[in-house]
Each structure stands twice: as structure tokens, then as C-alpha cells.
């Protein structure tokens, strides 16, 4: 069985026929070739696959593409406005909030969610807000600094 879906990713609409079991992350990476979103654990725990579904964060390894039919997905590729990086991307760069960078797309999308819900978070709120995202490199300190820098800008609204 295949099912027609129409999913808008970063402003562009994709109409495709998919198997119902296709995960949203595989739709992004393999069907439309948008590989910014990563698969880390594939068991819903690491957050590397985090994207926004109609503006709200979601682990895309734990959703079916058919569940996103008719919805708008925002991935890491959709944050920058042309050459101008999103304030969260700028902050992760400036504060060295990444090393290998594998967790970074998910970390930034989860940070986006955090700032949407809590525009001016305390350090503790940042740590709790990112508890679904694992990083094996940075030790998290610089990630917290980056999010703190981005807070107070309009990072969660853009």
C-alpha cells in the first residue's frame, strides 16, 4: 500500500506517494534529499532528528511521514534567511556550541522550541529544555552559553 502525502518542507511543497511505514526523517533525508536532519539513536532518545512540525518540535524518527501529511516541516536548512544565519546558528558558532556537529541540527531545533515556549530561560530551564538531546562532544556547557546568547533575540519566533 502507498499513500499520497503533501508535505511542505522549509516553504516548499512536496507531493509524493509513500509507504505508510516510512518515517518522517527518512522522507526528509531519502525522499526529498534534505540531509541536514540526522539520525543518531533511531530509538527516540538522542534528539538528533528533531524538526518542527507546524512550528512545534518533534523527533522525526518517531513519526510517520503520513502523520505530517498537509503539515509544514521546518528543518535546520530552513532557519537561515539566505546568507544571514538564524540567531541560534550564529550563537552556536560564536560560543563553540558544537564540535563534530552531528547533534547540532537537532540541538538547534530543540533550542528553537525552548525559546518559543520560554523566551528568556534560566540556565536550569535551558538544561531541562534540552534534556531530550544528547551530545557526545561538547559537554553541553557551550551549548547552554549559545542558547543563553540567542535568548533575548527573536530566536524562537523566526
Amino acid at each position: 500500500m502507498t499513500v499520497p502525502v503533501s508535505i511542505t518542507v522549509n516553504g516548499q511543497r512536496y507531493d509524493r506517494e509513500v509507504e505508510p511505514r516510512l518515517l518522517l526523517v527518512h522522507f526528509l533525508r531519502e525522499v526529498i534529499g534534505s540531509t541536514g536532519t540526522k539520525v543518531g539513536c533511531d530509538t527516540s532518545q538522542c534528539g538528533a532528528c528533531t524538526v518542527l512540525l507546524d512550528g512545534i518540535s518533534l523527533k522525526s524518527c518517531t513519526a510517520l511521514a503520513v502523520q505530517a501529511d498537509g503539515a509544514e516541516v521546518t528543518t535546520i536548512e530552513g532557519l537561515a534567511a539566505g546568507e544571514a544565519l538564524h540567531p541560534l546558528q550564529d550563537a552556536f558558532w560564536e560560543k563553540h556550541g558544537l564540535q563534530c556537529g552531528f547533534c547540532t541540527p537537532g540541538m538547534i531545533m530543540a533550542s528553537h522550541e525552548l525559546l518559543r515556549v520560554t523566551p528568556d530561560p534560566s540556565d536550569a530551564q535551558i538544561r531541562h529544555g534540552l534534556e531530550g538531546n544528547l551530545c557526545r562532544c561538547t559537554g553541553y556547557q557551550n551549548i547552554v552559553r549559545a542558547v543563553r546568547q540567542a535568548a533575548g533575540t527573536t530566536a524562537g519566533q523566526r
Partner: protein
Amino acid sequence: MYAPDFAYYRADSVAEIGRLLRKHPGAKLLAGGHSLIPLLKLRLAAPPALIDIGRIGELKGISVADGRLRIGALTTHAQIAASSEVAAHAPALAAAAGVIGDPAVRNRGTIGGNVAHADPASDLPTVLLALGASFAVATDDGERAIPAGGFFQDMMTTALGEHDIVTAVDVPTAPEGQGQAYEKFSHPASRYAVIGAAAAVGLTGGKVGRVVVTLGGLVPAAIRAGSVEQALSGQAPSADAIADAAAAVSNDLGPDLIGDIYASAEYRRAMAPVCVKRALTAALKRASSVAEAPAARSPWWKPSWL
């Protein structure tokens, strides 16, 4: 990981879910998918069809009427945690919903899916049992209400029949002066409950009145901790009385505690009284602060355990 192949249907109303369930034997409902999709990916389940109920408006939302909160089955954990109605009338439920998994999990997981799945490591069965909730269920021939006390039967086993659909969760609003709390020891990676304890306590004349304590995480299905309740009832709520009552939890834990590579059964048994003590202490603090209000003439009175 790829789920086994299945057919996919989308329902737009509760009546249509019923029709689809009867037409496709063995089909499973898909709500937030945050328990079902991981199971499919691990190939621990292989239903021939999924019926997506995630878009049904009539199953979403929170309202208060006639002394009860009604929470639609598709209401997400994030919506429950952020609701001022739930915070006012069932604060332990708001607290529990707010410590489920992580923000992305709370954005997708639903209360109906959580209770229907009945994972022993879930938070909501424990707290809904403590608050005396009941579940509104649509069946082949009408509707029925199942009280939480008879709903959670065993590990991932509920009183729901094959075609039964949870449509809403009804939670009595907290009586005046009652204190509620939910305490949890989380698994460090998944954040699932290793141990969860909920307490709802009232104070009458400075003594513990009606008290309900429940446990999850370490037992196959959420249970009442009757020995703890009995030990505390009628006592002045001192730190010693709370600790003694919490220690009685060993009588409520059967031989079959859950253990895994992260937390052995022995560890969970040893930590259970700690979790219960924290839940009781927090609930009693809140109970006193409400009961204290009318007695504005004695502002210097402080509960003895502070």
C-alpha cells in the same frame, strides 16, 4: 529501523474509528505514536493496519464542569502540563505530565495513548489512580466509564476490549485543602519512570485525613500503597510520621518488582520509600498551606515538620 509493512487509514470521527476497527481486524489505533512507533520499529508489534486518530478534533481539549476535569484523549502531555485548569484542579497531574520524557515527546504523546498503552514505566497511570480518575470509553454498543482502579490490570494490559476507544479522561477536581504531589526517579536517557509515587492528602484538625498514595515504575501496573495510607491516616504530619509511613511501602510491593540493567529490583525496592516520602512531604506541605488560609488569626503557626 523500519517498521513492518502495514495498511494505513485515517479516521475523522469517533464513529469512523469504530467502523474502521470492525472492518480491519487486528488494526491498532495511532494517536501520538510515541509508544506505538518505537514498538513497530523494534518489531515487537506487527499489526496489519493502523488507524490514525490524531486529527480528530472532538478528542482534543480540556474543560471543567460539575466537579470534574474532562481531558480529551488526544490532549498532549505538553498541553496538560501548560493548562491552568489542570494546575488548579489536579496539580499532581500537571506535574506528572510536565516530567514525561522530554519536550519533543510531550509535544506528541497523548493522555489517551499513555493510559491505553499502560507501560509500567509511565507516569500518568500512577497519578490518575491516585486522583480517582475514570476513563470514558466508546465501545461497539455505546459508551461506558471505567474507573482507574479497575483499568490498569497488568503490564501493558488494561480493561479495554478490542474495539474500545478511550475518548476522555475524567479527573475529580481536588477537594478544598487537599495537597497533591508526584515524585519520580527518571531513567537518565529515556526519562521514563524508574519509580513514580503520587500522593493526595487532606488535613483535618491538624491530622492527616483522607490520604491516597500510589506507585508506578517498579510494579507491572500502578497500585495503591494501602499500608502507607493506613500508617499515615490520623497521624499528626511530622517528619517522623511521614518517614515511618513511607517505610511501610515494603508491605505493598509484591515479590515481582521490575528490574533492568539500569535499576535492579533490589535498588528499586530500596528507593521506593524515598520516593514515597518525598511525594508525601510535598503533598502535605501543599495541604497545610491551603488549610491554613482560613486560620489567618494565627500566622505564627508552622507545621512541625518544617
